[in-house]
């Protein structure tokens, strides 16, 4: 025999047992991927529409006075902290939007600080109590500003009325003028009155609860190109769905308010030229309302739904202690109000160019890593493919939140967005992904997800640990007329860690394409 090289040589020299011993030793060290015997712990949590258990959003994710207030409100009302956190962020955005922007790279890519949040909680979950507590300082500030400017507004209004009356009289005199010289004099007087008529003074407004698209455009023009819509009712969705416009409302005013793109309205009877509109939403609605919202394909296709940061906390209803009464500590409430008032101290009558905050280098690194992580998972076949319209906007939203938190912590004079604020914003962004997945389950996802949900329902109804594709198609033949459609749904479930595919050899028969079910899926029933 020439120099031995292979297992045949080994068998000839040392016998088959030597071959078996060598192979068995190696085989024992090999771990089968997705082995049937794999313990449940090796399966990641499946990500399924409507089945994602969203993690809690703790109040401590917000810094200092804001986190303290959110925690105290949640404690006092016995509501999940996520609601107070989301409303708190919207209040902060209502105060700071349009005056500041964030430029993560320090260049011309900027994100305005407008923020859209939406929390879903069932009726009776004390949403209104949370809203009242969190928005109270805004109401108070508006009232104080209203009272402070009352005398001045009265003086200006009288001056305007006087000027208008004088112009009216001059116009009637013009008709009776004897010669050109007199007419010219009257014209000059009218012009002088118009030139010196004071501009109308309005008490500043920060937020509203209900507004149409047309009125919103006007409000942008009237109140410094910014407005917030803070409401614990879902009426705004009915307006956006076109309750006052025969079913086709103008969504542009809302969408542009999120992006901060210029708005030009030139219609008979009204004009609005706004260079950088900023619109913040802080909504709390019943989960059932979200499903109704999903009925409008326009909302999803226009990117309106992708702009919201969703919180889908588990309701405390049925688990509250009615005898427990914890008032919000006065110190916490006062700190919250004082901090918001300080942020509002320099609100000018006419809003100029927003001040741009860049990110520090470590903050940028942190943010860019997060953005890349999202990007890597939102492509075809990625974990976030089904909600890629939402995840595409998430890094931008995280940058906005980081800047808001920096301003909340440091104050109006913050120069850069720090690593600490970015770290908090990224942590919040990560938590919000699961909430969005849960929300989009209610919002109605794409057709593949609907098919996937039907398969999951079938698996759970029959308690299947594994099944063949053939059985699946046979059982759901009403839904899956073509194998291609079923395969797409099964592939989606595999991407979302609900299933694993494998081929099972059958003695004397063609192989079967099998699907192994994530045991965690069955425990989700």
């Amino acid at each position, binding site marked *: 025999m020439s120099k031995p*090289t292979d297992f*045949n040589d*080994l*068998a000839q020299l040392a016998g088959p047992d030597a071959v078996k011993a*060598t192979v068995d030793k190696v*085989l024992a060290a090999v771990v089968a991927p997705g082995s049937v015997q794999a313990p449940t712990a090796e399966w990641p949590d499946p990500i399924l529409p409507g089945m994602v258990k969203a993690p809690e959003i703790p109040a401590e994710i917000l810094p200092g006075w804001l986190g303290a207030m959110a925690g105290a409100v949640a404690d006092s009302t016995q509501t999940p902290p996520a609601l107070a956190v989301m409303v708190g962020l919207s209040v902060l955005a209502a105060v700071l939007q349009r005056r500041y922007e964030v430029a993560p790279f320090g260049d011309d890519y900027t994100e305005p600080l407008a923020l859209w949040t939406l929390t879903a909680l069932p009726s009776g979950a004390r949403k209104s109590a949370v809203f009242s507590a969190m928005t109270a300082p805004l109401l108070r500030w508006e009232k104080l500003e209203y009272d402070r400017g009352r005398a001045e507004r009265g003086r200006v209004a009288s001056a305007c009325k006087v000027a208008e009356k004088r112009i009216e009289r001059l116009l009637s005199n013009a008709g009776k003028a004897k010669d050109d010289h007199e007419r010219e004099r009257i014209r000059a007087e009218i012009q002088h009155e118009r030139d010196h008529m004071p501009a109308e003074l309005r008490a500043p407004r920060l937020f509203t609860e209900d507004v149409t698209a047309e009125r919103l455009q006007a409000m942008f023009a009237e109140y410094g190109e910014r407005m917030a819509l803070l409401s614990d009712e879902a009426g705004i969705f009915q307006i956006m769905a076109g309750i006052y416009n025969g079913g086709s409302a103008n969504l542009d005013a809302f969408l542009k308010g999120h992006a901060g793109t210029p708005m030009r309205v030139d219609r008979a009877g009204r004009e609005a030229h706004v260079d950088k509109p900023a619109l913040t939403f802080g909504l709390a609605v019943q989960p059932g309302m979200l499903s109704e919202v999903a009925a409008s394909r326009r909302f999803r296709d226009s990117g309106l739904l992708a702009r919201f940061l969703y919180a889908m906390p588990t309701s405390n209803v049925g688990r509250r202690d009615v005898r427990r009464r914890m008032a919000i500590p006065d110190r916490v409430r006062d700190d919250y109000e004082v901090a918001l008032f300080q942020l509002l101290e320099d609100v000018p009558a006419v809003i100029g160019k927003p001040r741009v905050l860049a990110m520090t280098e470590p903050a940028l690194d942190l943010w860019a890593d997060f953005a890349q992580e999202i990007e890597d998972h939102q492509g075809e076949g990625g974990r976030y493919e089904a909600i890629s319209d939402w995840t595409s906007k998430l890094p931008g939203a995280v940058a906005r939140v980081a800047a808001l938190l920096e301003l909340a912590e440091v104050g109006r004079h913050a120069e850069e967005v720090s690593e600490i604020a970015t770290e908090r914003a990224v942590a919040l962004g990560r938590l919000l992904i699961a909430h969005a997945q849960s929300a989009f389950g209610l919002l109605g996802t794409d057709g593949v997800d609907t098919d996937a949900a039907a398969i999951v329902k079938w698996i759970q109804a029959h308690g299947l640990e594994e099944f063949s594709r053939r059985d699946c198609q046979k059982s759901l033949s009403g839904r899956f007329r073509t194998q291609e459609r079923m395969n797409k749904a099964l592939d989606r479930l595999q991407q979302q860690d609900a299933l*694993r595919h*494998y081929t099972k050899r059958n003695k004397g028969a063609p192989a079967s394409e099998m699907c192994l079910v994530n045991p965690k899926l069955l425990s989700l029933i």
Partner: protein
Amino acid sequence: MSVERQFLDAINAAGLAPVKTIDLPEGRIVRYRAEGDKAGSRNGWAVLHRHPIPAGAFGSWKTGEQHTWRATTNETSTPAERAEQQRNLQAAQQARAAEEARVRADAAARALKLWSGAKPATDDHPYLRSKNVRAYGLRALRDQLMVPARDADGRLHTLQFIGPDGSKRFLTGGRIAGCYYAIGRPDDALLLAEGYATAATLHQATGRAVAVCFNCGNLVAVARALRAKFPRMRFVVCADNDAATPGNPGITAAHQAAKAIGARVAVPSFEGVAHV
């Protein structure tokens, strides 16, 4: 120097020199026997365009290599000439792919015809006796053992012929990459080996299913194909320990295949074993 001479020099330099003189008609793919290939084979291929700029492509279906060539000239080509050259090369690539598909299909048809007409091989074939292994599903044509090479879907692509003296050859033009011969039915583990005798030995010794990959260059392709087919299976690549060959190609390829699919490598150890 003529365009043809320059082109042929490039082919020679790449180690694919034709055994006989070849004609190179304008823009048409020609097949030839390259030096070192067996008689009757036509694994070499070349295509030459003389206009607007002399350029061509050549390669070998045996090794899978492909080269492009362009005449060296002092004249700068115009954008139109470059575009035409690009079109020519694309057309040559398409022709090459079509020709390759045709050759592969011919070989597969020939393999099926030979396989269908052959008788089951017996264990007393001299090669099997010398290796002390059985004929697991093999067939015989005259004194040649036939080992079928199938893809992961079970389609027969080519045949390996093993002579009584152990000489091995494949049907000309057939596809090998990703094709294998399976011995036994896999349960929870599958072994990969290079040659039939090694695979049969492993099957006899362990009772496990074994895939014959035919050569070390095919280990990665087969491993990938089988991993796609059996995503939950445990795999062990049973390497040939070519210690005497520089670079130990057997072990190198086995490690590459194992890395590609998350498997382990088993290497035969002859330490302390008396050589006969």
